[in-house]
């Protein structure tokens, strides 16, 4: 079974530029999550989708971050404009359905804002 796929793996951008990350969850997984992990901290949920609908985006900085999952499968997370403090690993994860007890992570997209 293929895991959660993410791209790009690494990205370096200047502040005020924009960046987009892509995620393809495990086949059949209805719930998709985007987490932000800053160095030395645990992953923090940014947004959670159930199929193509947003379940929880309470911790998403909506002035600069946006995410979509138009067809209920893959998803894109965008940051525009980027700030220095956005430097982090952006982890996509998926689970079979909302409320399922285990979520599976991709390898992450490493962002450095300079």
């Amino acid at each position: 079974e293929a895991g959660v796929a993410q791209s790009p793996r690494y990205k370096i951008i200047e502040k005020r530029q924009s960046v987009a990350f892509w995620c393809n969850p495990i086949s059949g997984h209805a719930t998709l999550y985007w987490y932000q992990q800053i160095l030395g901290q645990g992953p923090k949920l940014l947004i959670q989708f159930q199929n193509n609908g947003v379940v929880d985006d309470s911790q998403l900085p909506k002035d600069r971050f946006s995410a979509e999952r138009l067809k209920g499968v893959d998803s894109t997370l965008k940051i525009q404009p980027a700030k220095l403090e956005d430097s982090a690993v952006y982890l996509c994860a998926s689970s079979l359905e909302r409320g399922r007890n285990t979520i599976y992570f991709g390898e992450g997209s490493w962002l450095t804002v300079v």
Partner: protein
Amino acid sequence: DQQVKQNSPSLSVQEGRISILNCDYTNSMFDYFLWYKKYPAEGPTFLISISSIKDKNEDGRFTVFLNKSAKHLSLHIVPSQPGDSAVYFCAARGLNTGNQFYFGTGTSLTVIP
């Protein structure tokens, strides 16, 4: 508000000995707990979980213990192997968290050959 805490940022253990990683939580409504292992430059991988109706769950060399009254869980690895060297995160989910998982800050385990 850090609802899940891992107070030891690092731990070193001799190969073959027991590794004990600890995690504390504050939300009494948490009902499911997981441990993830993370190697450098990789995403976290699921290791083991425990429901709040149990106080112990075992999977091979890995055992998780839950003490609900103390709001504490621990991961035991016996015997420890060099390949276990990684960062370990505990995570918790509760009835009042909208299915959101809260993660600790991680403990870096080094198993010395």
